[in-house]
């Protein structure tokens, strides 16, 4: 029994490493990395054009560069890794090995997450060096800057990508083409980023003057529960102004991201187990 469990873990770890290595070989990874490094480098010049919020601007640029790189990795590398396996029938090679389909889903997902985690570590080190350099140049304007709040925002961004990649894995199990997976994933990202503001607007006083029909209200309520609220992970503006984010809040968004991702991955496993691969 124990050896069976060990065997399963070994299989999972080999799948995770396989997906990770496959991702590292993707040239889009280098492109995303270079783009974000260029963006971070631009901060060195851009900050000098501001009056006194130089700390805010450097944090804004660096966090946006990290976030943008994460999105590029998700939409190009992850989708390549996941959906194209099915698209190009390379999945048969993997499934011919003694893996269950659920193991394949979880192994792929964790491999992608390992890749994104490593990329985030490198980007965070690079952005910390950039900020440190700017800070040494303009020490006076960095009095309120907080490293802890900066890293909290990076962590929240990582949580967003945990969830978004679960969305990618989910859609790649129900669609037949990587392009459709890309479209669905981008749509979920856009809807997830805007749903909160749309709901707040519709429930605001202005909207009360033009009451919505009950069916539309019901659709909004359902959409609020089904769609992931991705704006909860956006702590960039707060971090830029060193506004303290409570650990309770971080715990809440961590739980939200984990539970939502687990639900998606379990659903993906169920669907994928029943799916007929042609």
């Amino acid at each position, binding site marked *: 029994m124990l050896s069976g469990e060990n065997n399963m873990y070994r299989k999972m770890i080999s799948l995770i490493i396989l997906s990770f290595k496959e991702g590292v070989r993707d040239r889009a990874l280098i492109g995303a990395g270079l783009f974000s490094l260029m963006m971070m480098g631009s901060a060195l010049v851009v900050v000098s054009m*501001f*009056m006194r919020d130089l700390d805010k601007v450097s944090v804004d640029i660096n966090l946006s560069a990290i976030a943008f790189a994460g999105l590029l990795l998700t939409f190009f590398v992850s989708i390549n890794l996941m959906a194209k396996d099915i698209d190009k029938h390379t999945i048969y090679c993997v499934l011919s090995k003694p893996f269950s389909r659920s193991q394949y889903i979880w192994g792929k997902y964790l491999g992608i997450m390992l890749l994104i985690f490593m990329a985030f570590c490198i980007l965070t080190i690079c952005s910390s060096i950039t900020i440190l350099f700017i800070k040494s140049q303009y020490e006076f304007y960095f009095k309120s800057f907080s490293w802890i709040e900066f890293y909290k925002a990076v962590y929240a961004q990582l949580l967003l990508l945990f969830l978004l990649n679960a969305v990618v894995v989910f859609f790649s199990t129900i669609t037949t083409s990587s392009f459709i997976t890309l479209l669905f994933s981008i749509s979920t990202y856009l809807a997830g*980023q805007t749903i909160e503001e749309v709901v707040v607007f519709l429930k605001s006083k202005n909207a009360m003057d033009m009451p919505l029909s009950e069916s539309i209200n019901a659709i909004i309520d359902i959409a609020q529960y089904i769609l992931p609220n991705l704006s909860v992970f956006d702590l960039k503006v707060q971090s830029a102004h060193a506004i303290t984010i409570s650990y309770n809040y971080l715990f809440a968004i961590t739980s939200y991201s984990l539970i939502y991702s687990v639900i998606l991955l379990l659903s993906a496993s169920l669907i994928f187990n029943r799916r007929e691969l042609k």
Partner: protein
Amino acid sequence: MKKVFHYNIIPFFLILSLGGYFLIQQNLTVKRENYLNQSYMGYTLPSKISGLAALEFKGILSDFLFLKVSTFLGDKFIKREMLADKHADYIYNSVDVITDLDPWFWDAYLFADLLLTWDFKKIDMANKLLFKAREYRTNDFKVPYHIGFNYFYFLKDNMNGAKYMMEAASLPGSPTWLNGLGTRLSVYQNQYKPAIMFLSETLKKTHNPALAKQMEIRLNTLIALDKLEKAVQEYKKIFGFLPLKITDLIDKGFVKTIPQDPYGGEFIILKNGRVFTTSNMIHKQKKSN
């Protein structure tokens, strides 16, 4: 043979194209400048649209929009073009959008406050934005300090001026001299001294060289006005009446020279003994479209 011909002709066409590109680029720069001068770009997307479109990149969008607004107006200042009311509306609307995207963005509030008060005399607009800042930057003494200054110096409302100055003094990080300034404000009524103190303090913490230069010019003008006004008061104390012309101050030895107004105006003595400049501290050389 054919291959050699190709290799010879490609560099020739490349150099020709580069030359053409260089000429077109120069021509385009001139045409683009004319185009920008003719078509006023005083429009910023409302935050209900830009906020949604920015997704999770609201902070960096606010930086970009602020840079766009400050560059556009900075160019007008450098060219010393007279600014019109439409520019004040543009500043107000843009900064309102920028601070909807990032409500803690002090650079944007400060930029709008300095321009709307000193250059456009739109104190209500400036205060409206500062009150928005006060909702978010609750622990920042600079916000009530600027509101208080606007009430006191521009609106001549000493009661509100003192109220906000005292609020500023009670917040963490406020300079020690601020403590008690609120109560002394009435002493400084109709004087340039608070404005000199205010600008000196703002100038010390301003990094942007273009804006710092503008502030320095204004500060020097205020120092000159203060110096002349003190001399006028001295003159009145000794002779019992005001000097008729500003040059009387030199004739009677109260000042050695009359400083030049950096804005191109002339210093004059008003009937109440105050010294003003005909430039009103605005560059008046060109007219903008």
